[in-house]
């Protein structure tokens, strides 16, 4: 997949409003993550790779769509780094690019069931597509 505009670490930092340099790599975020096993990259790696400028690796990560947005990582971070915001910012940079919507409306019907609340649909569309 080729990118028209290269996304830089600065873009992600700006969108997230996070200061990744504060991270001391203690791993408490990843220790707190309830969906750790489903993710290929983990919260502390988002801070670490961002520091190294390896945004592309983050953008290609499946973790973007496995994050539960539960904020446990942000809440428990002793240094106020807020990994959840980094993950969200990377996800945004991905879906803002052409053809990189993760989910489209036509894929939805197959996933629905009777009781599913609107909230699930609305949030899925907002999280995974433009």
């Amino acid at each position, binding site marked *: 997949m080729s990118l028209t505009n290269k996304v830089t670490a600065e873009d992600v930092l*700006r*969108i*997230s*409003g996070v200061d990744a340099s504060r991270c001391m790599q203690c791993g408490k975020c990843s220790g707190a993550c*309830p*969906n750790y096993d*489903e993710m290929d990259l983990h919260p502390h790696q988002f801070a670490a790779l961002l520091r190294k400028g390896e945004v592309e690796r983050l953008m290609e990560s499946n973790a973007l*769509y*496995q994050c*539960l*947005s*539960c*904020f*446990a990582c*942000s*809440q428990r971070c002793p240094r106020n780094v*807020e990994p*959840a*915001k980094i993950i*969200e*910012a990377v996800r*945004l940079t991905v879906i803002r690019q052409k053809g990189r919507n993760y*989910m489209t409306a036509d894929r*939805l019907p197959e*996933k629905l*069931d009777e*009781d*599913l*609340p*609107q*909230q*699930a*649909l*609305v*949030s*899925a569309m*907002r*999280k*995974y597509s433009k």
Partner: protein
Amino acid sequence: MNYSYYPGCTLKTKAKELDIYGRLSAAKLGIILEEPEHWQCCGGVYPQGEDEIATRLSSIRALAAAKEKGQDLITLCSACHHVLKRVNNDMKRNATICQRANNYLQLDTPYRGETEVLHYLELLRDRIGFDTLKSAVVNPLKGVNIAAYYGCLLLRPGKEMGFDDPEDPCIIEDFIRALGATPVKYSQRNECCGGYLTLENKGAAQKRAEAILSSAADAGAEMIVTACPLCLYNLKNNAKTKIPVKYFTEVLAEALGVKEEL
């Protein structure tokens, strides 16, 4: 006492119980909830990106409408509360977001986060008081062991939500106690149920839901109450362990003697 009330989409459709029992109970407690004529969906997810302005606007309109009426804004759905509360914080504290949003909205007077967003539970705790609530109970739920499920959105990030101690909350337990029931504490009450993944990775959602329900069951819970429609859905449908999961407003209505069968 009159308050603005933001029900949100889900409460109009799949989570009618949360809404209706909330209104019935409020009426019983002498609280008038005024639903604004035009409100739009909050989006269900707080836009964490600092440059996301458009997705904040619907929340700001609701907040500004409450400001016009000079009222606090009451929410019921955890997700709506999370979104409105945090967007409101942005309008208070983040000058760039505030200015850019106001540029879009062109309100008569710019909105700067003046409205106070209160969750229904906060209304009960901070404005009405659990003691007053206790004295209004007509059907005490004696002997029922109820576990509170907080989930993520009400509690975190703790500094922004200001709802309760995010690691050791007690508001729903106090609420349960006020209704005459016995609260059951268990370790997973503030851990995520995985609801957002129910579409994408049902397996993960099932794993999380089961972890929560089995922990509650081990602790002796006979019922779980929650404030979040998605959590309710997930805990009900995605766990092997089965314990009744209800909206907190339903047990509230029951205790206050205003519950009608829907």
